[in-house]
């Protein structure tokens, strides 16, 4: 079986979360050990001419440590949600290949996305659809559809093949990539998730 490639960002992401988990456990265990007098509180008197010099008791140091850990935790979560895997970027438009010389034709990504979404909605079982242009060269479109629970996927794939063909024709190329994410919804739902 072919294994999925793991990117460096994913490794960093996992590592940061792991370190945060370990730091929380270590900090908690250390405070617990000090509180139960199993461990001596840290001697901060040696750290001269710093802000820590002002601290007279270990609880204040613990508060700083906890604040730092919470900050790291927040940063880790922020990194996780800012990763490209979570928020694929869209492009604003693409240039048609047929343009020669000083003239060229640009297609807005939003217009292209709307056209693809509308074309997908032509299939009777599709309740709602949306699309985004992810790259300009080669053009890659990411589409999401909400389909009824009884949607025939063989027929839907045929319809999407037609959508891709029309997109190729409209853009004058034959390398358009299309990714369709299908969500089945019940009779009362129509939202694209």
């Amino acid at each position, binding site marked *: 079986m072919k294994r999925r490639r793991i990117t460096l960002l994913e490794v960093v992401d*996992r590592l940061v979360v792991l370190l945060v988990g370990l730091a929380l456990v270590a900090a908690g*265990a250390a*405070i617990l050990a000090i509180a139960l007098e199993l461990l001596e509180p840290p001697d901060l008197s040696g750290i001269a001419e710093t802000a820590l010099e002002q601290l007279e008791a270990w609880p204040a140091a613990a508060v700083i440590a*906890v604040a730092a850990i919470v900050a790291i935790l927040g940063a880790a979560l922020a990194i996780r949600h800012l990763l490209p895997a979570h928020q694929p970027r869209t492009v604003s438009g693409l240039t048609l290949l047929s343009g020669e010389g000083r003239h060229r034709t640009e297609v807005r990504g939003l217009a292209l996305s709307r056209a693809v979404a509308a074309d997908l909605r032509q299939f009777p079982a599709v309740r709602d659809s949306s699309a985004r242009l992810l790259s300009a060269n080669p053009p890659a479109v990411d589409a999401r559809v909400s*389909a009824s629970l009884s949607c025939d996927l063989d027929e839907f*794939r045929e319809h999407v093949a037609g959508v891709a063909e029309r997109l190729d024709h409209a853009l004058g190329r034959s*390398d*358009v990539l299309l*990714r369709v994410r*299908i969500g089945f919804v019940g009779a009362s739902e129509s939202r694209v998730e």
Partner: protein
Amino acid sequence: MPWIGAAIGLVLLGLAVLAMEFTPRRPRSLLHHAGERVTFTLDRRGLERRLTRTAELDPDVDDAKVRIRRRAKVKVNKVEGSDNRSMSRRVRDRLREELDQLVEKRTPKVKVDVNAGGGRVR
């Protein structure tokens, strides 16, 4: 005393973070069909809804709930008076067949749990 509580809280939070990191995550979507230029994926929640509907098509099933993680786990409330084993086997076979048609790679295995129900009577 408050320090002990805070410390225990920190340890528990850390363990929860580690547990979440090592627990297999629910897939957001499953591959339905990968063509040369067109790829289809199925939203996990939508697939759960569709499989739930398939399970509920069985006349001996009162209601069902499907959850997909690494396996597709089906909780079924049976109609009173129906046979557990044959119903469980039927539901499992139907869902396996549907999953084989819908999911191209890493098709989840099906596990059926039958509850007594208490609603409809056969």
